[in-house]
């Protein structure tokens, strides 16, 4: 299972890298989203895909899975939710002001 998850992470990250390197603003945003999914999945996988019971008081199981990575990922997801919302609006405003979403045209010159 871990191997499969790691491969998924690899696919996500490589797709994300491709998207970030394209010229369109929106694709860069999408790439950032995929990259964050990849990173979160990696965090979950690397801390061990446990098979214990959910770490709740009432379960009374023999083994519990580690709750820390899940707490970390929840926090990271909330953060990336906020940042992505901001980035989308920023990309939209940039597009409206500059009338283009081509990053080549948004490069700007060294001395302006």
């Amino acid at each position, binding site marked *: 299972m871990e191997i499969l998850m790691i491969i998924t992470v690899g696919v996500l990250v490589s797709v994300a890298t491709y998207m970030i390197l394209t010229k369109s603003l929106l694709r860069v945003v999408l790439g*950032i989203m995929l990259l964050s999914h990849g990173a979160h999945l990696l965090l979950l996988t*690397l801390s061990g895909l446990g098979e214990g019971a959910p770490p709740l008081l009432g379960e009374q199981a023999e083994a519990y899975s580690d709750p820390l990575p899940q707490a*970390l990922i929840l926090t*990271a997801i909330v*953060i990336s939710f906020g*940042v992505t919302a*901001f980035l989308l609006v920023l*990309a939209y405003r*940039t597009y409206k002001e500059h009338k283009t979403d081509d990053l080549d045209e948004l490069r*700007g010159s060294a001395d302006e």
Partner: protein
Amino acid sequence: MNNIVLLPVLIPFIMGVILILFRNSPSIQRFISAVTAFAMLAVSIYLTYIIYQNGITTVELGNWPAPFGIVLVGDLFAGLMLILASIVGVACLFFAFQTIHSEREKFYFYPFYFFLLTGVNGAFLTGDLFNLFVFFEVMLIASYVLIVIGGTKYQLRESFKYVVINIFASMFFIIGIAYLYSVTGTLNLAQLGERVGELEQTGVLNVVAILFLIVFGMKGALFPLYFWLPKSYYGPPAAIAALFGGLLTKVGIYAIIRSFTLIFTHNPDFTHNIILALAGFTMFFGVLGAVSQFDFKRILSYHIISQVGYMVMGLGLYTPLAIAGAIYYIAHHIIVKAALFLFAGATQKITGTTDLKKMSGLLKTHPALAWLFFIAAISLAGIPPLSGFFSKFALILSGIQEERYFIVFVSLLVGLLTLFSMMKIFVYVFWGKPSLSEEEVKKTKLAPLLWPVAPLVALSIIMGLAAEPIFSFSMEVAEQLLDPSLYINSVLKE
């Protein structure tokens, strides 16, 4: 257990939230934020005093014991950084009162100013790697807003790149955390320091260490990851640029110093030599960028990069004297750099431009501005008896002691080029025939612009004249940093 450790994080956060409620009345906002900034300064000084008296002070949030719960740790290094952050916070805030448009004030300028400081202070105090990530994000999200607020074409374009690069670095941060957690099974900095020493998996740990170096280097503008800095710091108004230039990259440097003195000390021959090499490249290429520019703000932005190199050089040498020099340098740099950016803002307000070729002769019309700038500029270049000299002196001395002559040569050369480019600013802006007519001179009142900056310049002079006590304090900080067992024992209480 001491809740005072929390106050530098809580005060700006609570006040930032309260400021949201008063978003439509700028005068109340200004009053509250001024009071808050001074309260932060007072609390930071008091906290550092307590740490100095009682040793490292910790607070365990929610009464959960250390490796399991979230812990905030105040040691001398953190205390010093808190004081510096609050000083710059006060100065930039008062400069912002004079220069920020009321439209920006209504768009939550002050709340985000304090959220930024919350993140910065939290990053200094946290004793947990994941919380370091969270506080980094708090700081960065606030910085995204501050850098784009106002929404000019240039700002929007450059902020997009700034945001993307920083999110990219944050994702690497998560990946690094994932690796480190799978290797060590903990994220508490103290416990990490303990376990990394015991593990004998140098290969994996080297990879993780370099991953973190990349992450923090991207935030701290290390070679070759500094390319984003000059353009994005050019866009926002001077008060914000000064806050960013003084503080933000230094948070990255703080994280590098913290992690490479506490956690990744398993293989200094490898990691710290890489850091030393990066330091040399960073300072050299940064100063080359500065020499080639003809714009006030851009020159200063490139100098941030070159001076980050000096701080990291201290870490790379990894002796008590070198680390003390680096700490002294950080203190000097935060204050002087913020002052210089504020001077850039003041001249921009007077002349309406930051292009050096379009200004001249301000020495005749604004002598006070000119001489204050001159002091700050030569302090940056490292002329005795100002603060810049003693910090560079300590770094170079320890470089010679360690027989790393090449880095010593590079840092001396960079010092010379820094002097050259600062003098270039002085010559272009302040010498020559006055370019402004008398009405234009009278239009802008200089005194309110200079009041926030003058204390910073005074502080730089004091830090130079009182080098002895301040340097011995830096030595104490450095010794505390180089003895991780102090930190580990006070957090884990064994």
